[in-house]
């Protein structure tokens, strides 16, 4: 198996709970326990992020995952801690469906300078949330990629894949995705955490990434430098 050292924690799942059950999302049928990240696990994840910050290979940090991050009871605290670790020059982003957005959350997001993508799963709720976020000084964008640039999560949900085909960003850039249970996955698509490449409790700096069996069914391509000679992964 060809592997390379991880260079960035790109995604950190604060919560795998969600207040929607969209047909095009693996969340309703998630094959792992749903919950919020424990604080010990979160702090351990921060150590990994901090390592990549010091290595100067950490880019943006996305507080997404298979859940709605703002449902975490210590969401505000988590935001400020992330900002403390990554500094103010890196992007801190998250996506929300807008259902649980309130004035307190908006103030927290503004204070931590989080870039927020409002997903239009329920436009009648997401739209007011988007306007409130913007009015509250939060950099807000909208997302409807799940319809017009969609994925089927590597064949894990019955949905169309219309997103452009290109080399996988996770594998190309050696990003990792930390799940709420502390697993580190090779990509955001491994929703069920079936193919972990490590755990936050592994030694900081020891994590390596590689193509996983899910890559064979993903619409994205495994970059050449990670292709196996006798692999069933989809090749560029």
């Amino acid at each position, binding site marked *: 198996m060809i592997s390379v050292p991880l260079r960035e924690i790109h995604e950190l799942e604060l919560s795998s709970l969600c207040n929607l059950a*969209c*047909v*095009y999302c693996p969340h309703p049928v998630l094959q792992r326990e749903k919950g919020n990240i424990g604080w010990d696990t979160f702090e351990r994840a921060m150590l990994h992020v901090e390592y990549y910050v010091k290595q100067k290979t950490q880019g943006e940090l996305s507080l997404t995952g298979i859940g709605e991050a703002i449902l975490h009871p210590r969401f505000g605290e988590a935001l400020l801690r992330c900002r403390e670790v990554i500094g103010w020059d890196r992007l801190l982003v998250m996506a929300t469906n807008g259902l649980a957005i309130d004035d307190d959350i908006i103030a927290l997001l503004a204070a931590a300078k989080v870039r927020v993508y409002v997903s*239009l*799963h329920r*436009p*009648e709720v*997401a*739209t*007011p949330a*988007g*306007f409130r976020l913007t009015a509250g000084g939060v950099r807000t964008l*909208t997302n*409807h990629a*799940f*319809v*017009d640039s*969609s994925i089927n999560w590597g064949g894990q949900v019955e*949905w*169309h894949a*219309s997103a452009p085909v290109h080399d996988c960003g996770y594998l190309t850039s050696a990003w990792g995705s930390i799940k709420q249970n502390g697993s580190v996955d090779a990509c955001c698509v491994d929703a069920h955490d079936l193919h972990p490449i490590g755990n936050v409790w592994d030694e900081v700096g020891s994590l390596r990434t590689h193509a996983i069996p899910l890559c064979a069914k993903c619409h994205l391509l495994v970059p050449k430098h990670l292709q196996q000679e006798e692999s069933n992964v989809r090749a560029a």
Partner: protein
Amino acid sequence: MFALRDIHQIEMTSHCNLRCKYCPSPHLGREKLHMSEATFLRSLQWAKYFKTRGTQGEINLAGIGESTMHPEFVRFLHLARETLGFEQRLLFATNGLLMDDAMARAIAPAKPDVWVSLHRPERAGPAVEALKRVGLLVGISGDPSLSAINWAGQVDWFVSSPSRECQWVKGGWAFVLADGRVSRCCLDATGEGVFAHVNDDLSQHETSPWVLCHTCDQDVGVPINVPRKDNVIPLKLMKRTVAA
């Protein structure tokens, strides 16, 4: 006053299978019904008349309703194509709930341009793909979120659409309601903007600004010589007032 020169929109039905809070449909101030064949044909004849005169532009085959709900939707679409020819641009927007592969294939020979609105993404997504497969999809609309209007104050919603010069009045456009009445504007959820009927001689009719122009986010581009209402009553409240 501006001479009528374009049947811009034909409302095949005023029924809808969704109840979006940013749309006047749930509290429509006029009867909900499917357009009759006679009214539809008459509308097409007027469009053909204006086409012959060189003033007819594109025709939107939807109004405040979901056209695919019309029991004769597919046949009507083909009727429109037969009457107006393939050089005439026909288009409509759908919420996608009824747009499956069978319907997409059935309407494909009529070559309409179709927009899918993202009111319910889980239903819109498969519709988008079905329409792509037959080459009819021209776009996806998230307007209620991304370029929102409050229907000139008729619904309690945001306005984020850029202000543009409205073409309805100056362009002499007409909106044929499902009952055959002809209105000045696509925002006419009450029928208050009606000035004619398709059975009238539309070649002799003129259009003009109306009361909703005062509260619309668009620029009508001409003086609005009708009294301003103190407040436009949102349709929802209007219904409640009537009921009380």
